[in-house]
Structures are given as structure tokens and as C-alpha cells.
């Protein structure tokens, strides 16, 4: 075929086509580089990271992976659909308990349990999303926060699914519950970290697939203007519930991983304020980019462990996250994931200039 031959760029008629093909090639190259970086990073996290960090950080990193999945769901709600939920940590708690019960009561394979806890939590979490059909913004945030509070209060006061055997598993308040089982291929901590990373990759792919297809477009329309979405023929009720269903499914799967990671669940591990912290870190990480969820999870789960290690109380993070969220919302609404590359590039250019122009002869007055 002659079509593969690059035409002479001097031929004016073909100029546009050449420009287009160059553009495609360049785009392809950029995408290729990005894909390569992502794959290398994932391979590092999957193969090397679990073996080189200490046991303490293996557990911390598993928590990071779990919360990245939850943060991803919340990011979809806030960034793509424009619905603010302050109940996602409570939905995670639901997922963890559902998974724990399934793991105790049945001998189903672990992946199936993850899927089932995702689906059951999806149904429960969508109920949390029902008020979103009638309200947005502050009121929706308040209602979801109240629901989260209700969930954690019920769990704490009844001490209900406190980890005994069987499907209901209630074995009194003081008995040491048995450990939650892990998948047979990932019984060690590093193994379970790897397992969690693989699940997280699948969840990220699920979200990317959503964002690039019909629901993603419908969500973007709803976020921009509900009136124009309705005029475009979008059944806004269905797509809003769909977003809550997806976020809850993710929290359910993440809960399943959390149950296996912690091995013992206690109701006091799930605090209502975690939902607020989660929203703050998700905003800081960036809600318009899926990688923002990873940054959010690092903030929420790794930073406290680092502070613990160096002897600083992690409670200071509440203050830090408050300031961070304020700073991000006022100066970088797309979050750190968007701002950091820009700042790094600016820093790079600054350093480059310093080295290139050591003499203050030109523009030195600055």
C-alpha cells in the first residue's frame, strides 16, 4: 500500500493531512510514554514494593490501596456528577461488615465474596443516595453525613456484627473474635497487598470504562447543568443513582479488602468523621482525575503512619487537611494531581534558567 508513504510536505494539498498524521503520531507517543510510566509504576508497586518495605508499611500501604478505591468512588460522585456525599466511610464500614459476615458464614472463594459484598453494599449505598434525587450541595452533604452517623451509631451501640462465627456472628461484647480469613493465594501481608493492588487496578479500569462511555457523558452533562441534561434526553434520576451505585460498589469491594487486611473488625474503627476527612483528602488529591484518588489515599492512610513513626500525633492531620483543602479549593481547584506536575515543570524551568544564566547581566534586576 502506498498510503503508508509519508507524502512530501511541500505539496500544499496534503499539508493538512501531514499535520494531522504528525499530530496523531505525537499523541500516540505521548500516550505511549504515559502508559509505559503507569505500567512501570504498577509493576514496581506489585512486584518490588511489598518485599522492600517493612511489615509496618506493608499494612499501611494495604490501607492506602483500600482507601484509594473508596476515594475513587467519592471522586466520581463529587467531580463527575457534582454530588457531595459525606457518608462514604460509613458505606465502607457496611462493605467491610458484609464481607466479614460472608467470609465467616460461607466458604466461597475470596474474589466472589468481594463481588458479593460490592453488590450488597451497592444496594445499601444506593439507598443512601436516594436523597440526592431531591437535593444537592450542602443539604445533600448534611443528609449523607447524618446517615453515616446513623450507620456508625447503630454499629457501635448494638456491637452487632462483632465477628463471631456463622452468618449473624453475634457473640457478645467481650469475646475475642476469630480472625477473618484471607484468600489462599495471599495469606501473608505482602501477598495480600499485592492481591489488593490487583483488585484496585480492576476497580480503576471499571471506573475508566464508565467515564469513557455513556454514563460518564451523562454525568458530565448533569454536573454542568441539570436543565440542559434533561433537555438532552438524559434520565437524570437513573444516572444519579447509577453514580451512587458505582461509588457504593467500590466501597463494598474496598470493604472486602479491608476485612481481609485488618482480620479483626471493631465498630469503633469506623468513625463518622472519617467520611469528612475522606472528602477533604479527595478534594486535595483532585476529583477530576482518577489518580487524585491515590494521592488522597496516601494522605489519609500513609501520612498518619509516617507521623506515628516519627512521634508526632496524627491528630494534627485534621488541622493540616483543613488548611490543605482550603488551599486547594482557593488556588488549585483541580487538586494536587493537576497542580503538582505544573509546579514541578515551573520549578524545573526555574532551575534550568538559573543554570543557564548564571551572570546577572540580563534581567538581573528581577
Amino acid at each position: 500500500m502506498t498510503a503508508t508513504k509519508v507524502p512530501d510536505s511541500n505539496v500544499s494539498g496534503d499539508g493538512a493531512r501531514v499535520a494531522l498524521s504528525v499530530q496523531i503520531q505525537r499523541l500516540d507517543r505521548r500516550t505511549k510514554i504515559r502508559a509505559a510510566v503507569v505500567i512501570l509504576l504498577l509493576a514496581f508497586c506489585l512486584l518490588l514494593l511489598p518485599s522492600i518495605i517493612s511489615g509496618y508499611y506493608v499494612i499501611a500501604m494495604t490501607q492506602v490501596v483500600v482507601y484509594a478505591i473508596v476515594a475513587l468512588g467519592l471522586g466520581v460522585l463529587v467531580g463527575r456528577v457534582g454530588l457531595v456525599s459525606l457518608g462514604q466511610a460509613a458505606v465502607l464500614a457496611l462493605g467491610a461488615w458484609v464481607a466479614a459476615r460472608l467470609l465467616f458464614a460461607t466458604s466461597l472463594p475470596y474474589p466472589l465474596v468481594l463481588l458479593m459484598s460490592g453488590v450488597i453494599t451497592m444496594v445499601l449505598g444506593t439507598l443512601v443516595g436516594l436523597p440526592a434525587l431531591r437535593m444537592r450541595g450542602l443539604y445533600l452533604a448534611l443528609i449523607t453525613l447524618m446517615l453515616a452517623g446513623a450507620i456508625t451509631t447503630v454499629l457501635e451501640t448494638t456491637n452487632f456484627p462483632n465477628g463471631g462465627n456463622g452468618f449473624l456472628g453475634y457473640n457478645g461484647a467481650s469475646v475475642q473474635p476469630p480472625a477473618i480469613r484471607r484468600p489462599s493465594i495471599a495469606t501473608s501481608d505482602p501477598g495480600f497487598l499485592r492481591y489488593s493492588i490487583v483488585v484496585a487496578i480492576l476497580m480503576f479500569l471499571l471506573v475508566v470504562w464508565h467515564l469513557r462511555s455513556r454514563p460518564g457523558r451523562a454525568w458530565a452533562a448533569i454536573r454542568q447543568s441539570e436543565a440542559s441534561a434533561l433537555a438532552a434526553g438524559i434520565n437524570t434520576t437513573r444516572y444519579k443513582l447509577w453514580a451512587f451505585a458505582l461509588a457504593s460498589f467500590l466501597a463494598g469491594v474496598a470493604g472486602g479488602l479491608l476485612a481481609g487486611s485488618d482480620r479483626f473488625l471493631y465498630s469503633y474503627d469506623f468513625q463518622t468523621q472519617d467520611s469528612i476527612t475522606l472528602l477533604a483528602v479527595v478534594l486535595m488529591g483532585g476529583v477530576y482525575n482518577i489518580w487524585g484518588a491515590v494521592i488522597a489515599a496516601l494522605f489519609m492512610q500513609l501520612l498518619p503512619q509516617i507521623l506515628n513513626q516519627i512521634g508526632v500525633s496524627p491528630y494534627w492531620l485534621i488541622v493540616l487537611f483543613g488548611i490543605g483543602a482550603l488551599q486547594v479549593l482557593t488556588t488549585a481547584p483541580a487538586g494536587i494531581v493537576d497542580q503538582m506536575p505544573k509546579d514541578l515543570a515551573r520549578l524545573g524551568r526555574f532551575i534550568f534558567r538559573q543554570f543557564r544564566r548564571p551572570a546577572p547581566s540580563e534581567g538581573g534586576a528581577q
Partner: protein
Amino acid sequence: MIEVSELTVRFGGVTPLDGVTLTFAEGTCGLIGPNGAGKSTFFNVLSGFVKPARGKIKAFDEDLLSMPHFKRARWGVRRTFQTEQAIEQLSVFDNVAMIHEHSALPRTTRRADTLEAISFVGLDIDPDRSVGTLGAAERRLVEVARAVVGRPRLVLLDEPAAGLPEAETAHMGDVIRRIPEKSGALVILVDHDMSLVSACCGVTSVLDFGRLIATGPTAEVLRNENVIRAYLGTEMIDETAVTA
């Protein structure tokens, strides 16, 4: 053909539309009037955001008012808004394709129809570009492409050229004029720019305080004394006197 009969809308003590009886036959029809005359309310009734207190609308022999909003879109009602509503987060292609995928049209023609609508409005840009990076005129054209993709039957354009410079307004007029022959849709154009209305619309109707005060061939309507008094103002009288 859209037949509106005795259409009345009430918001509390206000009556933005008061017994309007009006027919839009075919092609591109103008709908003008001062601010608050009821033009946007009329569009909101057609797209289903506002329920009228009284009246009927027959659109191509179907009862439009009995359809829920998303069904109207599927049936073929398309609209643009006074404040431009192209979706910033999405690409030009996705903006237009989205309308197609919610219009009960075959999936197989989506790509071709979308690209055709983009080229129909004269957007000579990469369809994968994000709408957030486009200028005002291009965004307005994306909105019009959204309104004409696939098989529209009733296209409502609410000040599609507001804020655009002269050359871009002329291009917009050119696009609007070609919509009926491209798709067979009936177009209703609301605008304050009389040169655009004259250039696009054979027939124009005028609303004032929710009532129809004139309807007929555009040139005649613009010379109508009631219209000049209610809407166009005395400057326009001088202008029409000069051009007459």
C-alpha cells in the same frame, strides 16, 4: 407544524404566557419580544420544564404536553439555552454524540452522524478537543451541532448568537438557515438581533407581556406599529424609515 392553542402559564401572581394561540408552520420561525415577554417560558413549556396552567400544544399531530422531558428529547425536541451549555469536561465529539445516544437513534450511525453535525455547523477543529479549550463562538456552534445531530424535529434556539461579534453572528445565521433543509426540522429562533432574525426567519411572531401582538412575514412584522412601540423602539422607526 406546531400548533399552540390558548397557552397560559402562571407563576404565583405572574402570568408569563397569557392565552397564546400561535402556529409555527415550517422552516425557521422567529419569536421576538422585549425581556420578560414570555419567550424563554414558551421554550421551557415546549421542553417540559414548565407545566402550563391551560392550553394545548400539538407538534406534528402529537400531543407534546403529555410527554415527560426525556421522552420529548427522544421524540426530537432539541434546544439551546440563553447561557451557553456545552459541556466543558467533554470533547466536542462526545458533546454531540451524547445527544445522539439519548435520542433512540441507531448506534451504528452515531459516529457518522456526529461528525456530520460538527461539519454542518462549520466547526473546523479536532473533534477530540475538549470544549473547555474553545472560544465563545465555537462553543455556540457546538451547541447548535448538539441541536441538529441525528433526526431533530423541533429545534429551539434561545439567543444562539448572543455576545458574538458580527462575522460570527453572520456565520451562525447561515447555519441556522440551513437547518430545516438539512434535517426537515422546524426551527424556532429567539433573538434580540433583528438583523439575524430577518436573515433567518421568513415568519416572525412577537410576544409582549405574555400575549401575542403580531405574527406574519418578518419584514411586515418589523414594520408593524404595535411591535415598534412595544419592542423595537423609536430608533428603529428612524432606521426603517431610512431603509424603506
